[in-house]
């Protein structure tokens, strides 16, 4: 059959520019609608995001101004090394994060299936998904990098062109690793679809091993004081690998350092600025070249990869009850059969959902690595005790993000299966309590282990460790009660996306109350200890002259603080649970 010409004058193939404009309009409309929906439906969440971002930005800015002022005065040469280390780490992370985002956007999303059935160019679809991915993968970089670089310019007394060039340099840099991530993703999927998971695991493992090796070589050979000359010497040697001239991270840091350079009298240095512009041009040129390459790869590999990915034989996963499930079933037998079955069911769902436990493992794993390195520094007692409390707060905050993201939506997610639960001989209270037990037991094991690890590494005495463990128990109980109770009080039974449920009003409220609860517990627990250490450090003068402080720093003060902490935990767990149970009992589905 001879090809039929274009069906009629009504339709025609668009040029690449016209397609790009169309996708740009689409993204702009979607972005505007998203913002408008947030302004109308999620004002609290939007306000929180803005306020917390501003606070975060301001805190980082203040911290970096102090740090750069200190480094400029004592170790100016280290700044170049720090920039190189920071940007090269970010470069690696951006390659991975953009690659993964591109994979899910280009190969797993319903939108990709729609666009590939329309007369659109594969390179246009790639460019559309690339813009989406680059936004998601790099906003954190800009949020973290902009206060740091602004602080550097301020501490260094740079002229105004530095501040103007800062953002273009960062954005031009971001395009390079993001394009590399996109290209790697398309090549892997098109030509090695079966190996993509192995290749990604191998690359992530290699990056982690390299990071661990760097950390180990800096901190772990000999115990020494941080910021000493020997420590700096070792750190310089270990980080020298990040100063390769072919790394875009080196181009970026060199461009920034040149742009920040001024004449001895503080005025603008034109030669330095020209150098900075050359580095910007280098970044832009390489970014554009990689985009051209990515477009070419998309043209030959995208449709082929999409089809190749579907060529894998659908895996039939047969799962039998694991010995862990049986053990849990036996252990939970005192709770009664229905509760036990519900807990085992939730555990199976959690275990088989990689997105849940992988984040859990990554965050708690990183925290564990940090705690393992605590021994490398020498602390005095007051410093160690305060770090112990701060670590406790960090463990609580990470747990709160998990309870908000994964535990809070659990009741809502039962909505579509409610006909099953509703027909079972199970009281509704038992459904809610099973979620509470699941969250509490699932949280307490890693959290108490991490707190124990942190305290042991800091060399804290046993009574402090016991104190922290009690606080940890209270935090897990309170956070579980808040997430499950509020989740049952404000269920969204029609929504099937956990992410959407947790990012709604109820999820945001849970996160805010959880953060306040953690702060209250840690502050109440830390004050007597801090006062005790202050009186120890400053002698009895403080004790005799300040009777209230002496009392608060003594055993009665400690006991009172512990009682308040337990009371706080009790209130945080029971009040939301009671509200949730009452509402859930009467809920009509």
């Amino acid at each position, binding site marked *: *059959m*001879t*090809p*039929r010409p*274009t*069906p*009629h004058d*009504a*339709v*025609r*193939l*668009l040029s690449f520019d*016209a*397609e790009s404009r*169309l996708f740009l309009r*689409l993204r702009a*409309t*979607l972005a505007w*609608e*998203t913002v408008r*929906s947030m302004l109308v439906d999620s004002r609290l969440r939007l306000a929180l995001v803005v306020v917390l971002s501003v606070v975060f930005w301001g805190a980082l800015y203040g911290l970096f101004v102090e740090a750069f002022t200190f480094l400029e005065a004592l170790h100016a040469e280290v700044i170049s090394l720090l920039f190189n280390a920071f940007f090269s780490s970010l470069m690696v992370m951006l390659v991975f994060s953009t690659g993964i985002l591109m994979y899910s956007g280009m190969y797993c999303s*319903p*939108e990709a*299936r*729609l666009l*590939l*059935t*329309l*007369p*659109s*160019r594969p390179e246009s679809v790639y460019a559309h998904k690339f813009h989406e991915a680059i936004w998601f993968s790099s906003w954190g970089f800009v949020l973290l990098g902009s206060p740091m670089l602004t602080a550097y310019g301020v501490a260094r007394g740079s002229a105004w062109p530095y501040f103007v060039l800062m953002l273009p340099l960062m954005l031009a840099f971001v395009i390079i690793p993001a394009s590399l991530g996109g290209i790697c993703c398309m090549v892997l999927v098109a030509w090695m679809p079966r190996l993509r998971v192995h290749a990604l695991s191998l690359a992530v493992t290699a990056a982690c091993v390299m990071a661990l090796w760097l950390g180990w070589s800096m901190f772990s050979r000999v115990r020494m004081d941080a910021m000493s000359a020997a420590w700096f010497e070792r750190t310089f040697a270990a980080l020298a690998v990040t100063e390769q001239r072919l790394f875009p991270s080196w181009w970026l840091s060199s461009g920034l350092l040149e742009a920040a350079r001024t004449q001895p009298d503080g005025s603008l240095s034109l030669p330095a600025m020209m150098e900075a512009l050359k580095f910007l041009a280098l970044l832009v040129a390489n970014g554009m070249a990689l985009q051209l390459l990515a477009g070419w790869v998309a043209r030959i590999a995208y*449709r*082929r990869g*999409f*089809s190749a990915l*579907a*060529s*894998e*034989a*659908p895996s039939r996963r047969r799962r039998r009850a694991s010995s862990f499930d049986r053990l849990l079933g036996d252990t939970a037998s005192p709770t009664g059969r229905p509760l036990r079955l519900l807990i085992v069911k939730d555990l199976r769902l959690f275990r088989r959902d990689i997105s849940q436990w992988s984040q859990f493992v990554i965050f708690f794993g990183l925290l564990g690595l940090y705690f393992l390195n605590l021994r490398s520094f020498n602390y005095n007692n007051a410093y160690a005790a305060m770090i112990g409390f701060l670590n406790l707060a960090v463990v609580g905050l990470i747990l709160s993000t998990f309870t908000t993201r994964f535990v809070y939506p659990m009741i809502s997610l039962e909505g579509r299966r409610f006909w099953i639960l509703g027909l079972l001989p199970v009281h509704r209270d038992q459904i809610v309590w099973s979620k509470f037990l699941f969250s509490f037991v699932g949280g307490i094991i890693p959290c108490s282990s991490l707190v124990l690890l942190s305290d042991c590494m800091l060399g804290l005495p046993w009574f402090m460790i016991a104190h922290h463990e009690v606080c940890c128990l209270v935090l897990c109980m309170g956070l579980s009660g808040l997430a499950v109770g509020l989740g049952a009080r404000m269920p969204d039974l029609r929504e099937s996306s956990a992410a959407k449920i947790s990012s709604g009003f109820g999820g945001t409220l849970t996160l805010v109350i959880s953060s306040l609860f953690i702060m209250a517990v840690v502050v109440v627990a830390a004050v007597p200890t801090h006062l005790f250490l202050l009186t120890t450090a400053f002698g009895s003068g403080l004790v005799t002259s300040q009777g209230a402080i002496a009392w608060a720093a003594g055993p009665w003060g400690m006991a009172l603080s512990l009682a308040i902490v337990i009371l706080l935990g009790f209130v945080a767990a029971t009040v939301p649970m009671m509200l949730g149970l009452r509402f859930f009992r009467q809920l009509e589905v």
Partner: protein
Amino acid sequence: MIEFDHVTRTFGPKTAVADLTVAIPRGELFALLGPNGAGKTTTIRMLVGLLHPSRGAIRVCGHDLVKDPRAAHLHLGYVPDEPCLYDKLTGREFLWFIADMFGMPRRLAGERIDREIEHFELGEFADDLAESYSLGMKQRLVFASSLLHDPDVLVLDEPMVGLDPRSVRIVKDLLEARIREGMTVFMSTHTLAMAEEMADRVGIMVRSQLRFLGTVAELREQMALEATTLEHLYLELTSPRPRDS
């Protein structure tokens, strides 16, 4: 208008479609039937260019789906079994996006969008965000979008899922009218009554093979069963037990 030329599609060691050869002329409604896992969805996905055949070629209006997918897509309209819309676009904005993607002139696109909104009775909610639509409303919108550019070939994968009886009637009437004007329809369905009522020819796939190709009357003749329904014939043909002679 549609040609499957010795098309085979494998998923690892499993063959989903084996040596499929079918030609569907202009103005025909072809219904592809078969039990779950027979290879119908794989066939449809190859026909709309989402999957490449492992062997053989598929052509739409003479354009090879692998070698020249964009030209083939200009002639195609597709209604998937699970409607995909942008939640944060209104129905009308989605229709404009599709019209623009097909390069339709603004004035004509506006007229066609109004026409399809009227045909599918979308007026009431065309300016609401798609996230608020029910499954049936989404399906009607996808139907409207697939007909905007008056395609030569319309591919339907389980088209009636989620539609209420009135919408089903609207769709049937529209399809009949378009087929009279020369549009070719390739439909995969489990609704045998609809296939019997509307299809010019049916194809029955069983375990990746096209077991039968022809009209319902020819099927009756082949099975030596008279005055029986397509459902009966289908169940006989796809039964795992050998038929009593």
